[in-house]
């Protein structure tokens, strides 16, 4: 068995499925490998938020056990992906006067300015999920990535803050903690997906990642190498199924099946009047469903989702910065012709993204729906590398003792 400290586990409790991905560092500690994958159908989640803790816990357990078996490890802690309509992202600026006599900016100044940037006016029930540094400003000079050692009187930092309703976030954490698993960190799914999909070049050029999940559509915008915007639209694949069930007057399960078998994002002219005959288990025809209607209902729903995202980005003034284009992931990216529809709505190149920034299980990496979970592993790898960079307490004590000894 591997030492459990060297593995990183991403757990996404989604609306349609619970998915656990196990990642492991290479022998030399440089690359990241995906070695295990476990998934289970999710039953206790609606629109990305847990509504039935008991069944959610059951599903999480199943996914974790499957991942443990596949990777042959014991999972003790996870990076937990969260989403939900309550999560919001916005940019904020923190200011800090440099007080030292020589005006040199120190590490402490940087810590202070970031702390200031996080101190924002949020509703009492909301908490900060992420505060990601974009860049620093020293005396008004823009685009400084590392100000330590520079001279200046005023240090500012732009951060992207993602915040959400604490109690609702806590629900997901409690489910995981209830299974004697530790939560290393809580990560916004949209952020995780973008980490999995985008290369550094694409982040630099500017890209939009849209993760169309079962209950929510999460999106994140990178431009100039930093995250600029995140958002959640609480509309997902479930909505399509629900629309179909309502519009075609079929049960929800049947609508889901119709969506998977006959769904597409564009209506197409050739379908006029085509009919699908639904059959019962023994093969008798039950009902005829108009294929054109099915596609139209579906197309309208997806079109609207893209329009809403487009409007949001337009408000944020980011539409012109997306030179690398749009990358789709999540189960919704599997809808035929969805890239075509998104191209039509957003007026820019759209592709289905692949998690190509990590290596490992091909079967996991090629699936757009695992992007978020893989991104969680990637997020974890950043964090643990940072942790490794600093000497741990035991190492510090050891060093001190050896220094003492050598002196004596």
């Amino acid at each position, binding site marked *: 068995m591997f030492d459990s400290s060297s593995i990183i586990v991403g757990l996404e409790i989604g609306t349609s499925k619970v998915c656990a991905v196990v990642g492991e560092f290479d022998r030399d500690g440089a690359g990241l490998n995906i070695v295990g994958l476990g998934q289970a159908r999710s039953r206790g989640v*609606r*629109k990305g*938020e847990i*509504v039935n803790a008991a069944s959610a816990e059951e599903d999480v357990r199943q996914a974790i056990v499957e991942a443990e078996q596949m990777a042959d490890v014991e999972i003790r802690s996870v990076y937990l992906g969260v989403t939900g*309509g309550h999560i919001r992202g916005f940019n904020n600026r923190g200011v800090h006067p440099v007080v030292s006599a020589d005006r040199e900016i120190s590490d402490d100044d940087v810590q202070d300015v970031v702390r200031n940037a996080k101190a924002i006016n949020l509703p009492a029930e909301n908490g900060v999920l992420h505060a990601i540094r974009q860049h620093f400003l020293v005396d008004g000079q823009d685009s400084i990535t590392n100000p330590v050692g520079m001279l200046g009187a005023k240090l500012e930092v732009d951060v992207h803050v993602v915040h959400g309703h604490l109690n609702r976030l806590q629900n997901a954490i409690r489910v995981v903690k209830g299974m004697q698993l530790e939560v290393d960190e809580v990560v916004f799914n949209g952020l995780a997906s973008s980490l999995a999909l985008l290369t550094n070049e694409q982040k630099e050029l500017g890209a939009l990642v849209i993760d169309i999940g079962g209950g929510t559509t999460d999106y994140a915008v990178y431009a100039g190498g930093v995250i600029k915007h995140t958002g959640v*639209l*609480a*509309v997902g694949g*479930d*909505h399509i*199924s*629900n*629309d179909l*069930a*309502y*519009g*075609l*007057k079929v049960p*929800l399960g049947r609508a889901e099946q119709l969506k998977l078998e006959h769904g597409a994002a564009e209506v197409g002219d050739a379908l006029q009047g085509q009919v699908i005959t639904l059959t019962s288990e023994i093969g008798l025809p039950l*009902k*005829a*469903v*108009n294929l054109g*209607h099915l596609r*139209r*209902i579906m197309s*309208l*729903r997806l*079109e*609207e989702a893209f329009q*809403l995202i487009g409007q949001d980005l337009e408000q944020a003034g980011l539409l012109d910065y997306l030179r690398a284009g749009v990358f789709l992931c999540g189960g919704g990216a599997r809808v035929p012709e969805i890239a075509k529809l998104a191209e039509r709505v957003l007026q820019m190149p759209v592709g289905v993204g692949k998690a190509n920034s990590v290596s490992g299980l091909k079967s996991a990496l090629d699936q757009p729906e695992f992007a978020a979970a893989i991104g969680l592993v990637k997020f974890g790898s950043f964090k643990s590398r940072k942790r490794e960079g600093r000497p741990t307490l035991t190492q510090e004590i050891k060093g001190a003792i050896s220094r003492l000894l050598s002196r004596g």
Partner: protein
Amino acid sequence: MDPKSLASTTAETRINKLGVKVFGVGTAGGAMLAQMAGDDFAGAMLVAVNTDAPASGPVAGVASIHLETKLLRGLGTGGDPERGRRLAEEHFQTLKDACAGVDVVFIVAGLGGGAGTGISPVLARAARESGALALAFMTLPFDCEGNRRQHVAREGVEQLQAAADGVICLPNQKVFKLMDESTTLVDTFRTTAQLLVEGARGVWRLLRYPGLIEIHLEELGALLRDCQGESCFAAVEAAGTTRARDALEKLLAHPLLNGGEAIQGADAVLVSVIGGPDLTMADMGRLMEQLNQQCPRAQVVMGAAVNEEFRDRLALTVIATRRHARDPLAGGKKKSATALLPEAEPPELDTQLIERKATFRSASRFVPPAPTLTPEQREQLLNKQGGGRARKNLPRMRQGNLPLDIVNRGRFDKTEPTVHKGEDLDVPTYIRRGVALN
């Protein structure tokens, strides 16, 4: 006049870049046209279509198309819509030619007879095929005219809804209830025709006068397409300094809007305001604010136009439609039965006039699909609803209007609604956008 020459003259009569032609079909349609000819309909070509020679002789300003075949021997359709339909099909090309080069075709007729019921749907189809927007304004027969005519009218509405872009029906019975005992038969018919003409004029004005806030043809069509015979309309005019308030008061008290209740229950409301150059923004604002308050759930489409003729006057036209979930399998052919029952309206109207304060439950945005009924069942339902007995049973009948959105939220039943800019995104997009499935 030769229809070919008609088609060629329309090019010159374009107003506001729109060629408008009004077809009056059948005897009733002809009578309405005669009324229009004497009215403020300058700029629209009026064409009477009939199968028998008009009883009152030709009317000035009205062209006519006479559909004739040897089969009829000059006696008209004899109240058989099938005959009217066949005749119209035979002369389809003539009708199509008459519609050529026109942007909007209004069809006014009385349903229930042979010519109006039979020809109108074919004419609507001809209009659409020649590229015009076809709007039908129909009167439905009085209850006393008998079951057969009701039945014929109902079928006519069904056919029209399939063929035309918009159908607005005025059940005569509704008007009948507003008449007092001493009103003569002639007056009654004149009033119904007058009401219909007013409605048509409202829509026509909407299209004719260059709008400051324009309502596009498509918008109008999309709004009317779903109305399924349950749309109500009212056109009012007011003059003087307090005209905005007066017009609104008149509108809310308008008999055809059930004293304003039709607006409250509407899913979409089209408002067209026409005023003189002295129309103030404050007036507009007040008017729309009041109207919006009346229909908080409805999608309000609003247009405004300014015309010199309306100095110191204000004309307000409102079309309120109630949307119906269509059965997608029926492909728009078969409509929900209750929507097509003109008789269902009068008893309701009756009591609402008596007890205005009766609690009005605003219908849900989601109207549950009406049960598909066999013709026999429908007939049975009709008989139940017609006549005086229905009044006593009214509370029981109303039960059907209870809002049932619980069913329709489906999977998102117990979740917090996803509201984005006032829209509940959990509601299917196609319903919110009013896309008809066919």
